[in-house]
């Protein structure tokens, strides 16, 4: 039997190494390491892969460094719309939510959809209502906002672009044309 293992990501994009200070890099490394360790602990104690990935993503949603949950990016309307999915390979069961803004941890709502509904994907108000009916407390959409993400929206609006997680940094001299 293969050794239990967990892998995680916190997003990809054209994040420029030159724009990342040593302190910022250290913050990311510490955050990622902490989440991996939490997943490793679950697996080492005999926990399921499903529980390990759910908890890892919940922790990543709680960390404002990453674009999910707290720290999620803004839409063009200045709002947040969060999506999440979980899939259990053993059973091929899956659950997902999309376009939610009042659920602190969309991944837990996705897990509820998988385990407590006959459906795979619920969206918007329907997804939120389903979660509330299963004991999830509503939160204010402002919970997800951070000053850094608001600045990214302002820059993206200025340039009329949609942007991936980490390509929203300030332009360097090489990127200024005209």
């Amino acid at each position, binding site marked *: 039997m293969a050794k239990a293992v967990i892998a995680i990501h916190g997003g*990809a994009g054209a994040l420029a190494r030159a724009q990342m200070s040593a302190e910022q890099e250290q913050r990311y490394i510490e955050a990622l390491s902490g989440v991996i360790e939490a997943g490793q602990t679950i697996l080492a104690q005999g926990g399921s892969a499903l529980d390990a*990935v759910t908890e890892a993503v919940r922790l990543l949603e709680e960390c404002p460094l990453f674009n999910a949950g707290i720290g999620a990016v803004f839409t063009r309307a200045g709002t947040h719309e969060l999506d999440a999915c979980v899939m259990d390979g053993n059973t091929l069961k899956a659950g997902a939510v999309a376009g939610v803004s009042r659920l602190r941890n969309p991944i837990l709502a996705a897990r509820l959809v998988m385990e407590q509904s006959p459906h795979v994907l619920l969206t918007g108000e329907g997804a939120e209502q389903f979660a509330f009916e299963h004991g999830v407390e509503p939160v204010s959409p402002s919970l997800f906002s951070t000053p850094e993400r608001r600045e990214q929206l302002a820059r993206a609006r200025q340039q009329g672009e949609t942007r991936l997680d980490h390509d929203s940094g300030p332009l360097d001299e090489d990127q200024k044309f005209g």
Partner: protein
Amino acid sequence: TVGAVALDEHGNLAAATSTGGMTNKLPGRVGDSPLPGAGCYANDASVAVSATGTGEVFIRTLAAYDIAALMDYAGLSLQQASERVVMEKLPALGGSGGIIAVDREGNVAMPFNSEGMYRGFGYAGDAPCVGIYRE
């Protein structure tokens, strides 16, 4: 976008993905993250995958499922299937980003075609291994 994939001691695979989407996206836009087979996929035979990047391209290519299909039908290894999708198929359609994946043997793949990807893995009982750029 964030995600996780895991293999437990019973040989079960699972995947999870969560996101705020893209900055300045149109309200109502849904990317690949909540779509099984696009940004998140796991089966009982081969692999668990979580993706991050240009969601529309991951949807059009069914990127996560494609990795499983290349392993199941074409006999590619986890590394070969992941590289084929992330380094060849996605860029051909303008897709940027990466994936994390683990197979039933406990192999881990984390290819990305962007400048960096926040990522890491850890076997039970070992120290975590974390990276951001191409080291």
